[in-house]
């Protein structure tokens, strides 16, 4: 009890401190803005996705879902960049490009979804799911983040890893470590040199690409790359707006040490020969580029035109003004100040205010048009943060938008043009997660495999489900024997007569038993479920009724 009193005191103190520190200059957002919310209470990860009570999510796709053409197989894992590409600037009709950050060419790639929003049900329909065909460019590797161009193509970034590079088609360019431009409509790689065959974007350089952002001018591109020991920020200026095949590449060099220097310059990096393109990082190092610790996402502030980028290793969001050949105003916008490793921000979650450590791992960035900056974290507690445009380190204005499912990293957020919808992926949640939550479509979702969702305010998404509700595992369900060899017996009491559907999924999310309907009577029910056809391993049984979803894991011997 004494501990509780002390905790309450700490919360009240933090709350007061937050009121004194928070800047009053953040302009109120228009009513109904996506970014207008009260923070969730920061916690360690739980099994579900925790978002503000004013918001709701709809699951769009999970690893293991079938592509539209069954012969194409199933959606890969490790969902990363999640780029909504509007058709004719529509916020109800578009494509969703999802990177798969696999550890081999077989597990890497991009899934392209066709999406349409149904105004009646207020739900998104996935009308097609297709893998992007990379065979003509010898595949892709480790598709990390990416970007949407002003001309509505997708750039997927290969985060090259220390795997041995090869030139398997003997074209002089090493196979992996490039940016690749995609046509979302045809879910194919674009031809860059007009020879009728697709190409990667050689002149943007070969490196461990993390992310790319193309300025509205159609020519200027910013890139982040983390090559392990070195980690640089690049700028590329295309010769022709809208065509990225040819242009000049630059790397950022500060005029002094990180933390002290506020100015810098862009150093040109040779990129005219195949050999130079293959060796971008080595060249940048030799030219004296400034190495930041773990550069990830680079974005352009829509409200101030400044360039923002994350350094994951130090847990910092930097920003600067780009003056073409030079940069100015270089500073740490958020995160750990120099010499500090325990930066924390006051988070008012409605029921109180707590100081939440920022930690390290700030990764993907996404702006709304008001300058609110979502920061997706791969480290710390893997939150989705939001930093308001009025934020300064002295007067913090930071919120926590989401606590992500256990084991996962939030990735790849983009917004619809009207900013009613947020598309984001949950990468690599724990396969041991079993708890189902109901999404806006009324569908139970278990975050036990990579999952891509759309999030909106409740008034904009779904009509039949009032809120995301956690469906607790029923304490009444008995399941035996466990492990099972041939048959599972389920003891399932019900307080009414109703129909239930049974479904079995593997721990990596593959559905191995298609929904099977059974009739439950009021009172005790005993069901027999043959499992002899399953391979040995761990599985999850989902039992859904109109009112509940119950999950249990079991082992097939």
């Amino acid at each position, binding site marked *: 009890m004494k501990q509780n009193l002390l905790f309450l005191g700490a919360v009240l103190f933090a709350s007061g401190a937050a009121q004194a520190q928070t800047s009053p200059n953040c302009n109120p957002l228009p009513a109904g803005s996506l970014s207008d919310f009260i923070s969730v209470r920061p916690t360690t990860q739980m099994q579900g996705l925790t978002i503000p009570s004013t918001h709701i999510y709809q699951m769009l796709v999970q690893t293991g879902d079938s592509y539209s053409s069954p012969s194409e197989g199933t959606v890969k894992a490790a969902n990363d960049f999640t780029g909504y590409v509007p058709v004719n600037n529509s916020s109800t009709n578009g494509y969703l490009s999802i990177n798969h950050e696999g*550890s*081999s060419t077989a597990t890497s790639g991009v899934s392209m979804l066709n999406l349409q929003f149904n105004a009646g049900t207020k739900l998104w329909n996935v009308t097609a799911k297709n893998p992007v065909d990379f065979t003509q460019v010898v595949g892709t590797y480790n598709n990390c983040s990416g970007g949407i161009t002003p001309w509505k193509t997708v750039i997927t970034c290969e985060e090259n890893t*220390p*795997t*041995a*590079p*090869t030139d398997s088609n003997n074209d002089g360019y090493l196979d992996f470590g490039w940016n690749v431009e995609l046509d979302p409509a045809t879910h194919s790689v674009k031809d860059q040199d007009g020879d009728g065959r697709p190409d990667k974007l050689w002149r943007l350089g070969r490196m461990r690409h993390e992310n790319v952002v193309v300025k509205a001018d159609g020519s200027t591109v910013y890139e982040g790359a983390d090559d392990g*020991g070195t980690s640089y920020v690049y700028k590329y200026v295309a010769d022709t707006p809208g065509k990225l095949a040819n242009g000049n590449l630059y790397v950022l060099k500060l005029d002094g040490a990180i933390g002290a220097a506020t100015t810098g310059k862009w150093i040109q990096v*040779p990129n*005219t*020969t*195949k*050999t*130079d393109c*293959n*060796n971008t990082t*080595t*060249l940048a*190092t*030799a*030219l*004296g580029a400034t190495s930041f610790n773990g550069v990830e996402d680079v974005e352009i502030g829509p409200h101030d035109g400044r360039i923002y980028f994350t350094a994951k290793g130090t847990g910092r969001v930097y920003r600067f003004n780009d003056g073409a050949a030079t940069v100015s105003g270089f500073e740490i916008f958020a995160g750990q100040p120099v010499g500090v490793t325990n930066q924390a921000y006051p988070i008012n979650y409605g029921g109180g205010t707590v100081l939440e450590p920022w930690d390290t791992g700030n990764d993907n960035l996404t702006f709304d048009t008001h300058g609110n900056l979502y920061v997706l974290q791969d480290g710390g507690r893997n939150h989705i943060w939001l930093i308001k445009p009025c934020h300064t380190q002295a007067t913090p204005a930071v919120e926590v938008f989401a606590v992500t499912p256990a084991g996962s990293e939030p990735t790849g957020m983009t917004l619809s043009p009207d900013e009613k919808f947020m598309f984001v992926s949950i990468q690599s949640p724990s396969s041991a997660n079993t708890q189902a939550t109901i999404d806006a479509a009324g569908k139970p979702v278990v975050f036990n495999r990579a999952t891509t969702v759309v999030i909106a305010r409740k008034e904009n998404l779904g009509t039949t489900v009032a809120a995301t509700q956690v469906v607790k595992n029923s304490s009444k369900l008995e399941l035996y024997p466990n492990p099972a060899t041939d048959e599972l017996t389920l003891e399932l009491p019900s307080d009414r007569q109703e129909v239930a559907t049974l479904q079995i999924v593997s721990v*990596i999310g593959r559905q191995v038993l298609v929904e099977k309907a059974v009739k439950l009577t009021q009172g005790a029910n005993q069901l027999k479920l043959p499992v002899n056809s399953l*391979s*040995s*391993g761990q599985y999850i049984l989902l039992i859904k009724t109109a009112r509940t979803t119950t999950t249990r894991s079991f082992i097939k011997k």
Partner: protein
Amino acid sequence: MQGNRCLAQCPNAAAFTIAEALSRPACTLELNLRFQDLEQLPAAVSKLPRLRRLHVQDNHLRHLPDEVTQLDSLRELFANKNGLLDLPAQLGNLQRLRQLQVNENALAELPPSIGKLDSLRYLITAWNNCTSLPDELGQLRQLEYFDASHNQLLFLPATLGQLRHLKYAYLNHNRLENLPVQIGELRELHELDLANNHLEQLPASIGRCRSLKALTLTSNQLKNLPSSLGQLTDLETLIASDNHLTTLPRSLGKLKKLKTVILVGNAFTPEARRQAEALLPSAKLYFE
């Protein structure tokens, strides 16, 4: 045909747990155990006769079991990002191994039997603590790619020159003070990275690496470059920042394909810069 029929009955060739793999050993071609906090790899892994690719990277392994060397079908072994202190002495038994990736461990040496890996094309031992490499390395006649960067290498074995098919050699971030003369035998070498070593000179024999396209010498102690570099007729990129160079050998003027020369952080006088630029009119030189 029998094997094909068998594979046709396998819905999934990849497994993500040992138990899953062992439940269908004849089907499992790939076992992916990444990020599973493994401190030991079960010896039972050897009971997967068709395993071609084994991913055990990103764990906490300190040793690999000897039984790994019984995986006769193994083509690719990824054991990087662990805490490996050594590799099995009989590693050379993996006759079909094409790629061995053991970077980011704590290896102090490689087993001599590595020389028996007749099929090995890609060897990545970067970010370890090796001070030397076994002479048997030179027996890897199929090796195309070798990354031993970020170790503590004090010297290279003379047998390195026997790697006739080597195309990419990354030996940067070591403690090399000189190179073996035999390096000139690497006639198919495309890229050689020697950055961040203690080299004071290069052997003249380097000029015999006739396929070399990119040579990186950043952050060494070089006061001059050998005139034999003028024999590298395919050289496109020369990177030699942060040395003590004052001039370029005149022989470089013969290198028509040389387009990029990075010389930041050297001791070129303004006149020496002009001479270097006049020597290479079709190349772009970077002095700062």
